[in-house]
Each structure stands twice: as C-alpha cells, then as structure tokens.
C-alpha cells in the first residue's frame, strides 16, 4: 500500500501521529488507527483539523493520530467548552474530540449535555471501557449493572447510556461501535466527517489492563458476543462515483450534508435511524437484553448547527482584520453623545 495517495495527494503516513504510549491491545489504539484511515480516505487536509480531548488514557490518543494537526489536551471533562471556543473562533476548522467514559460521564457530564444541546459541528468520540483506565481501573458511570471489577467489586448503579442521552439532548448524529469492528467503525467515522452538526460516537473500547476479565461487560469477549448491529453501514463519499444497488425496502439511503451517501442495509426487522423515538426504544430494549446496539442509532442530516444559528460572518472570526472588528470614530462619538 506504500505510496498510495488520497484525493488531495497525501499518503497515509501524513495522517499518523506519534507512537502510542497506551498499553498494547488497548481498544483506544484501534480507534486511533481507524481515525487515521478515515481522514486519509476522506482526503481531509490535516491542517484544517483540530483535535481536542479531556484527561484520561483515551484523551491522550489525539497525540497518536494526525500529527500535523493542532491538538489540545485540556482538563478533565472540559473538552467540550474548549472545542466550542475553538470553533467559535474559526468555524472553518474540522473538530474531533476524544473523551473517555469517565471524562464524559462523570466529571464532564455537564459540558457534554450542553455540547449536545448546541449541535456544535464536532465529532465527539467516547472511548468507552466502563472504567477509569488512567487512575487504575475504578468504575465509570457507563459500567453496566452487575459488571465486576478485578477486585471483585460489583457495580450496582445503573449505567448512563451516552447514546440515549445524546439523542434526547439534540445531537444530530448518534452512533455506537466497537473498537474491534474495523469495518463498521471506519464507515461510521467517514460518515461522521461528512456530517454537519454534532456527531456523538460511543465506541466500546476494552481496557485490557483493568477491565477485560470474565465478569466484565466491557471485555473483548463479552462485547463480541453481545454486539447487536442495527444495520450494515456503508458509506460512499461525494467524490467517489459509485452507485450502490439494492433491492427496494432492504436498505435505507441517507444523503449527507456534503452530498455523500450513507447506505444502511437493514438486518432482521426494519430499523429506521431517522426516527428518534424508535431509536430510544431500541437502545432501551438492547440494554435490557444485556446487549449493545451498534451502528448508526440516530441521524438528522439537515438541522442548522450552532455556528449557523449564531449567524457569524463566513470568515474565521480569529482572522478578521482590525478595521472589521473596531467600529469607527463615529460609533464611539454616537455612544458618548447618548451618555451626556
């Protein structure tokens, strides 16, 4: 594959970051690899990308992809606000935020909630291992009922379903995947890059060091056994002239903001990811069965995002010249006159 370039003439190496310092086999590493693939395949200019994160093993991973993009590893649970600020300053940036289930579900739940409400154009990924990796394996708020720690402690509090919460709060692209499902994760990530608005992607990402044992509901083995895909996701970017044939009624076609196409091939019963109530119902049902519904859970491709609502000028606010941001003498004189 060496030497293969994408539509903007870059090789895959241009999308790599520095060498990972996470544990070998950590689900987070697999996610970083898929992110590299997705940005490469979508032909996105790395200098247009900003990578944001909170604190945790997961939040370290922006250092391990897109090394030539700016990154900001902020404070624990507060990446949403930093990302919001960056996008307010420059709405032309492509923002990807990496969080953990502790970073989001515990300390950061407040900022998460408000980020979802605003439909800010950001890809928000939770690398979900049901525990705090970096502080050595305590339960996080996404730990399932009855899941057991290595120490024998059993979780008896109900988990926060970040997907259900995101749908409820107004995110316009909500998906769940598994770090071990290369194909599905890559398709979802590429679709995420074609979406305008908040993408909330919960990726179950086993922590091999603290939460991969028998009795844990976030171990590789458990997740593989209990993965309940909602549909078969394929994505065709706008710049690829590929037509997908399917028998009527078997596949749902969604046209994305940039003209890309998402094909969701229905499995067993007909799941409709544009139906909010059906999506929430499905999440509850699979959870009751002790399974994980994966795939695109909910999508609303055409709602105005936060930046459109603010009605700011098209250029990045950060780069407006002084004469456009300092009103003239008459303005000051008018204000002074009104105060006399």
């Amino acid at each position: 594959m060496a030497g293969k370039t994408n539509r903007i003439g870059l090789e895959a190496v241009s999308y790599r970051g520095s060498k990972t310092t996470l544990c070998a086999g950590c689900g987070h590493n697999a996610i970083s690899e898929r992110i590299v693939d997705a940005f490469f395949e979508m032909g996105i200019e790395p200098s247009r990308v900003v990578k944001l994160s909170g604190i945790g093993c997961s939040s370290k991973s922006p250092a391990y992809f897109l090394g030539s993009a700016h990154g900001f590893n902020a404070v624990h649970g507060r990446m949403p606000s930093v990302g919001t600020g960056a996008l307010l300053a420059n709405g032309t940036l492509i923002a990807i935020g990496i969080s953990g289930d502790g970073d989001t579900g515990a300390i950061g739940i407040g900022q998460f909630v408000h980020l979802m409400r605003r439909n800010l154009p950001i890809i928000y990924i939770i690398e979900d291992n049901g525990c705090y990796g970096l502080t050595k394996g305590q339960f996080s708020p996404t730990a399932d009922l009855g899941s057991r720690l290595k120490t024998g402690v059993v979780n008896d509090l109900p988990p926060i379903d970040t997907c259900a919460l995101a749908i409820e709060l107004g995110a316009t692209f909500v998906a769940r995947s598994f770090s071990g499902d290369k194909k599905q994760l890559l398709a979802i990530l590429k679709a995420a890059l074609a979406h305008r608005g908040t993408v909330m992607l919960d990726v179950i990402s086993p922590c091999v060091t603290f939460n991969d044992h028998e009795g844990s509901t976030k171990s590789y083995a458990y997740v593989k056994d209990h993965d309940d895909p909602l549909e078969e996701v394929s994505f065709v970017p706008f710049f690829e002239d590929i037509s997908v044939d399917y028998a009527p009624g078997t596949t749902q076609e969604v046209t994305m903001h940039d003209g890309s196409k998402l094909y969701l091939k229905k499995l067993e019963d007909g799941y409709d990811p544009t139906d909010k109530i059906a999506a929430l119902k499905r999440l509850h049902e699979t959870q009751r069965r002790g399974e994980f519904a994966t795939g695109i859970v909910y999508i609303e491709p055409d709602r105005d995002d936060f930046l459109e609502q603010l009605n700011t000028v098209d250029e990045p606010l950060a780069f407006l010249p002084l004469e456009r941001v300092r009103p003239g003498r008459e303005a000051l004189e008018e204000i002074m006159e009104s105060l006399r």
Partner: protein
Amino acid sequence: MLPTDLTVQENRAHGRAERVVNDFSIQVATVNGSGSQTANMVLLRSILLMGVPVSGKNMFPSNIAGLPTWYTIRASTRGYIGRKKEVDFLVAMNPETAKEDVLTLDPGAAVVYDEPLKLNALRTDLVFYPVPFDKLVGPVCPDAKLRRLVRNMIYDGVLAKLLGIDMALMEKALSRQFGKKGKAVALNQGALKAGWDYAEAKLAKQDPFAIEPMNETAGKILIEGNAAAAIGCMMAGVTVVAWYPITPSSSLCESLIGYMKKYRVDKATGKATFAIVQAEDEIASLGMVIGASWAGARAMTATSGPGISLMSEFSGLAYYAETPAVIFDVQRVGPSTGLPTRTAQGDLLTIAFLSHGDTKHIMIMPSSVEECYTMAQEAFDLAEQFQTPVFVMLDLDLGMNNWMSSAFTYPTTPINRGKRLNAETLKTLGEWGRYKDVDGDGIPYRSVPGDGMPAYFTRGSGHNAKAQYSERPNDYVENVDRLARKFETARAFVPKPAIDLRAGADIGLLGFGTSHWAITESRDQLREETDVSTSYYRLRAYPFTDDLATFIDAHDRIYVIEQNRDAQLLQLMRLDLSPDRQKKLRSVLHYDGLPLDARTVTDSVLAQEGFEVAKKDTERVSRSGMTGGE
C-alpha cells in the same frame, strides 16, 4: 476634639442661615422593583446638566422586588465623586425603612416624605416636607397599573422646585432616559410637573440646600464601569465572548451584547463579526475563552467571585499551556455567596495565584470608568503579548454605579497580537519550538490552527520547549523558570502606577481601584483639616512595577488602603519587599460592603498617626441585615 468635628457640628445646626450650594448628598429610600431607578437617573442627570459634578450610588438588595433600596446622589463643587457617608436630603418613600432612615439623619437634614407616613412627628431638628404621592399620581396617570412606576417621578418634580433644578433640564434628562418612547415621556413629564406644582403651592423652602448652575461638566458623560468596559472590549476588537450571569458582572456582557449588535454586524451581509455565548457555567465560560484564544481570537469572559473560584483549574491550564484569556472580575463581597449586591476588593490574593502549583497571574486595576474603557483594551494586548490570562479587577461600586467622566477617546494605537508565527518569523527563527524562549523575555512564538504555520500539541501536562510530552525534571524546571521570566518581563509592560509625590511628606498612601476616590478626597481632608501632607501611589497592576520600592523608600510610613478584611494587597506586597520596606507598611481596611468613603480613610490614618479621632458614625451597616435574599 478636632477642628473637623467642630465645623461639622456648626454646619449641622438646625435652621442655619447659610446656604449649602452644590455640595450635599440626596438619598432616596424606596423598594426595589418600583421603577425608582428611572427617577433617580433623571435626578442625577439633571444635576449633571446643571453643570454640577455629581455621582450616584445604588445600595440594593439581592432580590428582584419588594426589598429596601437606597440611592444616593452626591453633588460636589470640588468634583469629589466618591461616597459620602452623611445624608443631607432624604426622600423617604419606603414605609418599612422610613423611621430608621429619619432617625439616623444628622440634625439639619431635610426630608421629603410620603405624607401618610407622618414622619414629621419623629424629630424636631430636621426640615420636613410632606407630599401626598398617591393623591398626586391619580390625575396624571389614569391607568392604575402604571401608577406605581410613575409615582416616583413626582419626587423629582418636588426636588426640582425645592433645590432649584431647572425644569427644562430635568425634562431633557427624562427624554434621555426614555429615548423614543414618547408615551412614557409624556406620562412622566406629567408626574414631574405635578410634583413641581405641588411643591410650589404647598411647600415653603426651609432647608439650606440648593443646586445652582456651574460650568464643570461640559461634555461629561454618565456611565457605569461595566458599560465602559464593554465599550473598551468592543474597541479592542473582541470576537468571542462566553459568560454566565452573575451580579455584579452580568451587565458588562449584557451591555456588550447591546453595543455589538449595533456596531459589529456587517452592513452588507447582516452577519456578526462576533460570537457571544451564554455558557452553562463559569468553567465552560473560561474553557470557551481558552479554546477561542488558542485558535487565535480575542476572547473574554466576565464574572464575580463565585465564578472565579470555578475558573481555578482552567486558569492554571491557560497559564501553563500559554493561551491568552481576558477575564473581568467585578468583585462582590464573599466568601461564598456573601453579599452579592455589595462591593469589595476581596479577590486579590485568590487571583494572584489562582489554580494549583506555581501559578501567577497578571491583574490590572481600573479606578475610573475611563480606565475601565482603556484597560479593557490593554487587557487584550497584554493577554496576547504574554500569552496568559489577564484579570481586570473591577468591583461592584465601579461596575454597577453611575460615574461622571470625560468622554472616552478613540484608540489610535495599533493592537498588539503578540508573537505570532508567520512565514517571515519562521524563516528567521530557523527551528521553531512552541515553548522556546528565543528573545530572552520568556515569551515564545505561537501558531494558531488554520494560519498555515506548523502545528503543535497543546497540553496542561509536562512539556518541553518543543511542546512534546515530557516528565524530565530538567524540562519541567526550564519551562517553569521561563514562565517566571515571562512574568518578570510583564512588570515593564503592565499599566504603570499613578504617583503623586509631595515634597516633605512623611506619609504615603497606597491604594487601587475605587478606593482612589475616597483617597483623593481624604488627602484634601488630611491637609486642610490637620495639615498632614501625603504622597499617593495608585497601584494599577500586578505584578508590581519597580517604582513601588522607590516610593516606599521615600516615605516613613505607607498606608495600604483596601476594601477587604485580610489586607490582601499588603500581603501580596510583602512577598516582593525586603523586611525593611515591609516594616513601613500599615493598613487601612474597609469591608462592610459599602463603597469606601474619604472620612473612613482620614479617621483611620489620623488614628494610626496618633491623633484623637472622634467617632461619628452614620453608617447604615445595621440595615444590611434587613435586606437579605440570595
């Protein structure tokens, strides 16, 4: 007894003959939510329009409606616009407080009161003017629902007649207040006139107080510090604002929203050259500011003590990761919720070192509304120049009260965007490291996303000069030592103090912020009443500049005047000063939630200088208990 007290008593004797022209204070006691603010502003502005230096202070409860509020207007021929404790003329509209309001007056004061309150029975050494407000308001305001609001305008009419304020100017002030709302103007004009007519027909002037035309206020404006700061931010070219409502800072962002909507929307496209977001809390506010500044915008937030506490962790991140941020702290009384609607200078020590680890922050300290305007602009320059948070320290008195000021001048200097990487600098630097000190001033070069320059990874964890993750002891030490060097560099760039050296003065007074107004007046009192001459150092920033030591050396005793309990500024100074200099420091402290007044400063200095000071206290402190609320 000091000569001062003698004069005061003479002045206060009942029925005194000599007139008191343009030098007294009026206090209006009402309940909040009754629309009295409009009547008070009209009164204030009409005195300004008479050419008389004037200031207005609102003492209000933390509550939306129904609790006592006092508004004090001070006219001063010498232009003193600080607080004056004594009330000369009371307008008693609030039945709940009227009795106590009257009982605490000094002899000789005048009282306009709501007739049914029968306050004239309380004392014989005051001048009373009963006004039947309810009877007067009926005919001028047929709509019963509006009467409560219009009623207050009647006392303006009564005062205009009693004090000799030109009715034409009062009407002018009225239309200023209501702008284009013609119906409201007409209604209130009616009420004004009803008050005037009543006073003319029924009230015989017995008090000595009068407003006479002067020529001291030509071109002057009346503005709150928060609004002045907002104008400064707009002129500084702020593009991103994130905030969370909290008294007394909300009106800074709210007036900014008003100005930006008017002056910062592109004519051609109707699109805004700014984004203002009401965040979910102060943590998010500062997070947004940091994210925006990191991406190259001029970004700010405004808050008060409780918000500052929440901003602690992010402040440390911005300091260590070196992103600019402009944070206005409109200080109120703490700790905790404290007295949310009262003023203080109590956040100094918290902010100087806000966040864990070795952290130090730049603070700049405006004293006047004009400085709110200019320092708002300086704050953005400093934040970008030093790539660090800059805190602008207002207080409730400055932020929310109306101050007379010269008109603001249009900025003529270019803005300073700091050391930003571009093709040229990149070439001369050769190899760029985000945290590399190439000029010896501790300030590195930075790039921002989307500027086409090399990227870097920003983090609050340990990093080396190339912004790479590092836990190496040497990297850590080099980095924080450079940050200390950067802070040293800032000494030469922060606003310089205003120093007034008096030859032969043994004493130096030192203060900052709104204490300035009490201090300047106190210096006159000290000189005129007791022949004590003082020098004055008005601090305008932290880190301290080098002339602080020089000033201390030139005097035997330094009175550090501040509005908090723990002498926070003095403690902060101690960290920088040699033991010899530390020994010269004395404290004048004021922390009851009301603005500092000159007499308090004078008395405290004189007492510490060994003079005998008669304690004469007309404070309203006892009342604060009654005006609780959250």
